[in-house]
């Protein structure tokens, strides 16, 4: 699963949805794999407005990637900043989590990732 997915996922437990701590899920013991994908600036620029930037900064630092700027760039700034474009392309699209866990900051539930597939099915007592 690509790192970009983490910006769209939250804890699957209903009671956690209203808590700001259930997003983003925290990556733990993550094994990463890299694909080589040709840089497409338009893709990054079109993805930018739908990113939760603060959540992305958290994910990025948890996975050991270079610190992202505190404020998101404007599309215009991003277009002109080849380093940031490349960093975002690498983090969001080229990097995948193959094994590890995603942990809810509210309830502590751990969702296992195996073969790149996260398991959000809940044991029956949590549904």
């Amino acid at each position, binding site marked *: *699963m*690509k790192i*970009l*997915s983490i910006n*769209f*996922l*939250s804890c*699957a437990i*209903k009671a956690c*949805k209203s808590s700001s701590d259930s*997003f983003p899920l925290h990556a733990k013991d993550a094994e990463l794999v890299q694909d080589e994908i040709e840089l497409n600036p*338009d*893709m990054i620029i*079109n*993805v930018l*407005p*739908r990113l939760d930037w603060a959540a992305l900064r958290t994910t990025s630092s948890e996975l050991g990637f270079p610190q992202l700027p505190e404020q998101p760039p404007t599309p215009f700034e991003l277009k002109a900043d080849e380093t940031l474009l490349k960093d975002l392309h690498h983090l969001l*699209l080229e990097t*995948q989590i193959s094994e590890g866990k995603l942990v809810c900051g509210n309830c502590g539930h751990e969702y296992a990732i*195996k*073969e*790149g*597939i*996260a*398991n*959000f*099915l*809940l044991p029956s007592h949590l*549904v």
Partner: protein
Amino acid sequence: MLPTPDTSHVPYERVYEPAEDSYLLLDTLSSETEKTFLHEAFPDAAPLVVEVGTGSGVVISFVHAHAKTIFGSSQVLTAGVDMNAFACRATVATAAKAQLDNPDSYGMYLGSCMGDLTAPWRDGAIDVLIFNPPYVPTPEMPARPEAFTADDLADAAKPSFDDDSYLLALSYAGGRDGMETTDRLVESLPRILSRRGCAYLLLCAQNKPDEVRRRIEGFGPEWRTLMARSSGKQAGWEKLQVVRIWRDFAAVE
């Protein structure tokens, strides 16, 4: 006609095989009316397309592979959810093959995860939701075998016959009116769809599609539904149909 993704690698003894309903969704999404609707609904900011219950992955891989044709831009994000680990694994492979086969039009496939309907997604995250539900009326919902191991890919090298039967039943058995699962999905739409979001929902005649549409339109004055495509009439009924669900805020402001 856009080429259908190759699913020859999918283990059909435990993953739903593409059938008439899957192909009706492909026809719907590549129809001129829906292409026009999607081009206009998502002119910028890469939409996130999520298919719930991907099975083989034929539908979401079709959207991924033909993103440029369907949306008018290859900046389209796609992802899948299924309760069946094997369906998730199959979908990853189907998407990868479809991408190789359509080098000039594919979007960005983010991956697949296991989950119950829309539960793993953040509120308001989904721009286009696609659902081919378990719609067949059945006396009861499938029961999980006691020693079920097949939701853990690492332990599921050899699922038992009971596990396989359960996994297949999940893909079609819909309980009362064939609507028990679809009802839960419909209830989640106001939470899960983005403001500009829409959903494509497949229904059969026994699901009482007119009632389903009325219920959705009852969510609020901005909610709209439309029969986007049908498989043709049988004894006076549309056997299968795809309903497009969206909100029109401009009309109520």
